[in-house]
């Protein structure tokens, strides 16, 4: 709540400055009976920005910085015996202290933890006072400095526009920052993982059996209980994607051909959005559908045929995922097929070919790069899809090509490992980051490849 009040305070101060600046500009106009360079409200906005931006910057530095500062300072309050003990881990100690600060106390914590928490609380209190004083002080001072600049020579519109332009430019950098944050968070943890587990074991090992470090330690002498061979996960992802493609490619492609070549414009306007609904349904709904409707159906029909279908099978997940990605193929391919110029079709008809021959021998080959790209994009969507496989494909890391068995995928392992509490030191947690890294590389690689195909093989008409 403190943060909210402080922000409201800062913003109201800057609004007061807006009114002051606005009135000052009006006054100058009236008293000197001259025309100012800019309209009055630009002077108001200038003073507002002058007051608001520095104090907001101050506020963010303090709120982000204080936690980091406290974390490094609190180390002095951890007793030396604890630091020297063997299983000392600062992250865990920090979490203990923070829990204690928030009033989440499990069992009876050591005295020093409670003491450190008290110290922490007093720091938080002090920093809140300091932050509010400094922010409000900055808001007033910088607002006042902005106000002092107002005179008949000052071109406030130009100044305001410069500031707004730079705000716009900064916000476009967020996209870069996000990418950097993703790479940063994934790559660093992956490097730590590969320091524990050699990368060839990860990439080419055939057994995936992550265990928590604690379990290994408990059964001492059982080192190497955990195995991090990711081949079963890749195989599972691949298997499910193939099943999904078997469903979505024929349906998507034929739909696209029909919609763009045979359908009347009314039919097209009706069916295209209808198919796109399939892409708009949340994946958790598909997961529920796969787990509770499709999987039992497959199981019962399998037992009629004398086949043993696991209750969580690759087939159920793959089929439902195939349904989900139909619109990715149908809509994109439809657009591409539509973009083939009419003159090519007319030439085909002129030679006496039927619609089928025109489509299959002229239009489709011309649209092929785009169609292939749409399929690749659909595959990358299937590889990155999470909820369906978490709910319907199971968690058993089987290395199998049998679609009736349970398999697991890269994404579902990431979710299983990272949901719940985790210690950032264990190889099990870190392995999720390594999996995420491979996932990013695969999906981005496919994306680049799809764009490359479109660029390289695109026919330039006209």
């Amino acid at each position: 709540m403190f943060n909210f009040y402080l922000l409201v305070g800062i913003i109201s101060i800057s609004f007061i400055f807006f009114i002051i600046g606005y009135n000052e500009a009006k006054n100058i106009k009236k008293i000197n009976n001259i025309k100012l360079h800019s309209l009055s409200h630009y002077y108001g906005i200038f003073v507002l920005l002058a007051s608001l931006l520095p104090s907001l910057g101050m506020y963010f530095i303090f709120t982000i910085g204080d936690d980091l500062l406290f974390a490094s300072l609190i180390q002095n309050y951890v007793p030396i015996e604890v630091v020297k003990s063997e299983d000392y881990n600062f992250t865990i100690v920090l979490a203990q202290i923070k829990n204690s600060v928030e009033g989440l106390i499990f069992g009876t914590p050591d005295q020093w933890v409670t003491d450190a928490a008290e110290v922490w609380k007093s720091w938080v209190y002090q920093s809140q006072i300091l932050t509010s004083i400094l922010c409000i002080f900055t808001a007033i001072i910088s607002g006042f400095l902005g106000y002092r600049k107002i005179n008949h020579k000052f071109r406030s519109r130009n100044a305001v526009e410069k500031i707004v332009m730079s705000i716009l430019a900064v916000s476009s950098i967020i996209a870069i920052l996000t990418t950097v944050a993703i790479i940063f968070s994934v790559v660093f943890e992956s490097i730590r993982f590969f320091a524990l587990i050699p990368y060839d074991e990860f990439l080419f090992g055939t057994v995936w059996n992550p265990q928590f470090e604690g379990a290994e330690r408990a059964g001492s002498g059982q080192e190497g209980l955990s195995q991090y061979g990711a081949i079963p996960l890749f195989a599972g992802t691949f298997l499910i994607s193939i099943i999904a493609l078997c469903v979505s490619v024929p349906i998507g492609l034929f739909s696209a051909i029909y919609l763009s070549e045979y359908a009347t414009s009314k039919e097209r306007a009706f069916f295209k959005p209808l198919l796109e609904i399939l892409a708009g349904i949340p994946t958790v709904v598909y997961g529920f559908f796969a787990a509770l409707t499709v999987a039992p159906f497959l199981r019962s029909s399998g037992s009629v045929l004398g086949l043993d279908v696991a209750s969580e099978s690759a087939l159920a997940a793959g089929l439902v995922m195939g349904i989900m990605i139909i619109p990715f193929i149908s809509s994109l391919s439809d657009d591409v097929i539509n973009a083939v110029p009419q003159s090519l079709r007319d030439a085909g008809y002129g030679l006496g070919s039927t619609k089928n021959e025109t489509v299959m021998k002229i239009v489709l080959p011309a649209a092929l790069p785009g169609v292939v790209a749409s399929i690749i994009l659909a595959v990358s969507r299937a590889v990155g899809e999470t909820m369906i496989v978490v709910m319907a494909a199971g968690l058993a890391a089987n290395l199998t090509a049998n679609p009736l068995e349970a398999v697991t995928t890269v994404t579902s392992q990431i979710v299983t490992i990272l949901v719940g509490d985790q210690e950032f030191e264990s190889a099990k947690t870190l392995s999720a980051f390594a999996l995420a890294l491979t996932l990013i590389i695969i999906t981005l690689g496919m994306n680049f490849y799809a764009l490359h195909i479109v660029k390289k093989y695109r026919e330039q008409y006209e």
Partner: protein
Amino acid sequence: MNKKRITPLEATNTVKKSIVKRRSKDNRLKLYGRIAIGLAVCFLLFLFYSIFTKGYPGFFQYYVTLDINFDRDRIDPKGDLSDNSLFDGEASKIVNESLFSIIEPKGRKAKKQAKKIVSSGKDVRIAKMVKNDPSLFGTITKVKFALDDDIDSFLRGYIKRETPESERRISDKVIGFVDKLNQDGRITYEFSDYILKGSASGNPEMAGIKGAFIGSMLTLSVCLLISFPLGVATAVYLEEIAKKNRITEFIEVNINNLAAVPSVVFGIMGLAIFISIFGMPRSIPLVGGMVLALMTLPTIIISSRAAIRAVPPSVRDAAYGIGASKLQVIFHHVIPLAMPGMLTGTIIGMAQALGETAPLLMIGMVAFIVDIPNSVMDPGTVLPVQIFMWADFAERMFIQKTSAAIIVLLGFLISMNALAVYLRKKLERRW
């Protein structure tokens, strides 16, 4: 080179012979296309059908009406209506007594089983009633209580009378009690007041989506407040201000890449950056909204840029012509004209964010939280995650409630998308 010359007549005959085959091939392709679309539409209809038939009963449940003696001394021993006093009271005992007076269980074991017929939320219900209306004290009023989920499943016919007792979740004795209540006309089937007003609960008969719904709204508002201004600002900068150089090209590549990154990766980033480095608490809508905002940003940027590009240059030229500055052109003309397109893109992005589950699992919004979140800093969960959690429970009633929650979620998504379509149709201008 001893090729025979073909006369026109022969040629016509050859073509005539083959034309039937070629035409049928043509018809076949058309048929395949129709089958494909038909299949896709069938999948869609079947999906909706299966969710709706499962979820519709989830909005209803069985209630039992009991005559409750609102004895102030027993319900509210301290007489001040405080939570403490009501907690000390004997509300559930009174309910049980009223129940026993109808079904007359004999022996301790029978009584123990009989108590379970009425859902365990009975004392909370009475506490709420007397708080709202203290004049109830001293009266004997008919009150409706939810039945336990096993009894509910029995009344719906999922637990069959014919199954041997040992394989049933409820005993013959309890069935006898329920029959007695039924003969008295005390059991009714009506719209559930838990599904929409209740929050997460381990008891399926008392579980509802209110907490998750409010969590979703909080998360979405954070997401909207961050992604809409940022997305529009980025789009304006890239389309109108930035010169085409290496830096802007790099930004564009980044935006396209972000659109292709799987959503679960955004969750990992949220976990590693917001929670682990910035030390923000887990499970809060603020972090969830921030992660979803970064995820929906590319969608908003791409659609906003398309909308800005659709504004014809003549509008800009006219504004420049009467002496407007660049920013005045942008803020007075380009943005208002492009706003419908931007809003459409934003609504579609928000719909995506509303249905997203995986990244929120990563940042801990999967915790079991009974309290309804009051602010973006309170731990909470969201609708899709609630669906995911309920889907894991074995009780029959949870399947219905999950489907009911899915219906609510789909209802919101469909209305958001319909709004987007409406905006596009009504407000977007064609030049």
